[in-house]
């Protein structure tokens, strides 16, 4: 199958390993991955911060860029959520009904990674090998906007060597929320503190999730406290095999106080 990668601006810029892993995984499963060059950002940050008018050109760009493709995947529940639940709304409020219906059409062909694997490609065992104790945080937008349900867990359960431990209070938000983490930094940090407490209680080496944004937040906290627990995107775990291709080691996080 020919699959267009919607990389998301955050993965492209800050966490390319999650996007590269998505490419490796899909190619290993025998699919062709294409990267439409005109893509930048879906505009979610603008919409969620109260700048819908400024998001219009970004919605238009996204729709124009991805309209030619039949199947589109992003390694992010949040950005797929924006495409599915915000793009048409923004277009409609901006008075562009034609763009809105095109946005709805693109949204109908856009999948989060675990949805693509389980629902479209019909696979749960992707042949991965990841010999670590892992706990999974079901990010809010995957959980409640996309309703991905247990698809990520079904994928993780088939990974050889992986010891999956349940995260207590898993469905509680980690406190990221985009600009919320900056505008309400104290509240966000309080939510993060509880999330980290639960992650540490599992004894896992790795906290996995389907969104690099939430992982940046949780990972930033775990790093600050020198917990020795690292955050890894679901795609990186699924891309890892006994032949290698495991998560790329990055420099430790920059310590900024």
């Amino acid at each position: 199958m020919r699959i267009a990668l919607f990389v998301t601006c955050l993965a492209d810029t800050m966490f390319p390993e999650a996007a590269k892993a998505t490419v490796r995984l899909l190619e290993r499963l025998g699919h062709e991955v294409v990267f439409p060059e005109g893509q930048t950002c879906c505009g979610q940050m603008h919409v969620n911060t109260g700048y819908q008018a400024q998001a219009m050109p970004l919605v238009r760009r996204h729709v124009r860029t991805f309209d030619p493709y039949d199947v589109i995947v992003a390694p992010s529940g949040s950005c797929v959520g924006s495409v599915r639940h915000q793009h048409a709304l923004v277009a409609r409020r901006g008075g562009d009904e034609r763009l809105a219906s095109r946005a709805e059409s693109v949204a109908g062909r856009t999948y989060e990674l675990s949805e693509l694997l389980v629902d479209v490609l019909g696979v749960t065992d992707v042949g991965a090998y990841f010999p670590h104790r892992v706990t999974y945080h079901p990010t809010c937008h995957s959980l409640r906007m996309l309703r991905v349900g247990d698809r990520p867990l079904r994928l993780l359960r088939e990974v050889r060597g992986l010891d999956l431990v349940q995260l207590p209070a898993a469905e509680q938000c980690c406190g990221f929320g985009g600009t919320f983490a900056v505008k309400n930094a104290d509240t966000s940090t309080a939510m993060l503190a509880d999330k980290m407490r639960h992650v540490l209680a599992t004894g896992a080496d790795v906290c996995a999730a389907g969104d690099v944004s939430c992982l940046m937040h949780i990972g930033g906290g775990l790093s600050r406290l020198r917990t020795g627990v690292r955050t890894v995107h679901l795609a990186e775990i699924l891309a890892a095999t006994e032949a290698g291709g495991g998560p790329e080691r990055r420099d430790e996080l920059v310590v900024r106080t």
Partner: protein
Amino acid sequence: MTRTFLGMPATAPQGVGQLRGEQSFPAAARQALADAQLRRNLGHATATIRAKSGAVIAEAPDWEELRAAGAAIKTDVLARLPELLEQLEARVTAAGGVVHWAADANEANRIVTDLVRATGSDRVIKVKSMATQEIGLNEALDAAGIIAVETDLAELIVQLGDDRPSHILVPAIHRNRAEIREIFLRAMPDVDPALTDEPAALAAAARRFLRQTFLTTPVAVSGANFAVAETGTLAVVESEGNGRMCLTLPETLITVMGVEKVVPTWRDLEVFLQLLPRASTGERMNPYTSMWTGVTPGDGPQAFHLVLLDNGRSAVLADEVGRQALHCIRCSACLNVCPVYERVGGHAYGSVYPGPIGAVLSPQLTGVADNASLPYASSLCGACYDACPVKINIPELLVHLRDQAPHPRAESAAMAAAAYTMDHPALYAAAQRATRLSRWAGRRGRGLPPPLSGWTAGRDLPEPPAETFREWWAKR
């Protein structure tokens, strides 16, 4: 000939009632987060209600259908509100009640104060009511020399503690029983000095105090959960029976009701009386549901006044996205599931309506500019939307109100620049390369400048990667 321009309906007036906080949400939240006892009390209480409510909702096989029905009835009500309110007025009047229309808090307070004065009483007993707190009725009565005694146990704790409610349903949720004992010992008349903090002992002390008050006060003030237009029947839903005491014992009953509380028919109550207890207290059936229609000779209050309150509701109704906030039946399910509320509590929202529903209702009632930080008091996790028994899409509303909120100038400039950059791929790639410069410019030991310093105060930032995804892709 003069012409009056009937523009947008008025929002709730300033200087009266409790819809606006003294500080912004982030500042108030910062203080609340430092209170370890508060965090513990709230965490325990919300987790308990969540579990209880979740269990009884899971028992109802038609919960989703009930939610859809509740939302549909409310949508219908809002679509023909004037007609239903006039029908309600006609039925209440026919049944011997008197209906008053109050455009805002000041008018409602004036109406109620005059009505109480006319009875000659200098004291009223109160049924727990959000509408009267919204308009600051107790303060208005106090200024007129009339004492209002709250009879809901938790409201009494708040009143005796000279405190403010922090939850719609459990106003003293921020207090534990040791704190309640201290409040009673300090402020309850004739309390037994040997009072313990056993829940039964605390309830007994409150009962002794309240019984005396019920039997000696001739006027009661209540709110209303529902009003049935077809019959003119009012309904109050409560758990303690204290509300029923107020609704049946006094000679005069004054009910202050937000205009959105009307429902067309008795049959509609069937839906809400299933939704409300399961979503709010986690009960299958509500313990005390009191209903009355006008006055009944020889039985109950012989004078009944209904005050229909607008106070900004028409302005909310005028916004076709925002109006769904008027669906709210004040169950507080959204508070109990909200990770923000659970950590900061109700006072941080600065309004009688805290939590997710408060973050969308208060700014609409007051006008967004007066509560500009509230629409941002959410991580948009969506737990509130899932929990709402009348399907108010609170995340959608929050985003809608953020779009109307006044924005800081620097933020607007940054957002415009970001949008421009992201709409020009070459500029975007250049900006990505600039991010990498921070590998050299912003090395260890240096935090981000404000307003981004909030991030680095509690979290590390990743080192930007050696190459972006698109650079890697281009080399493949």
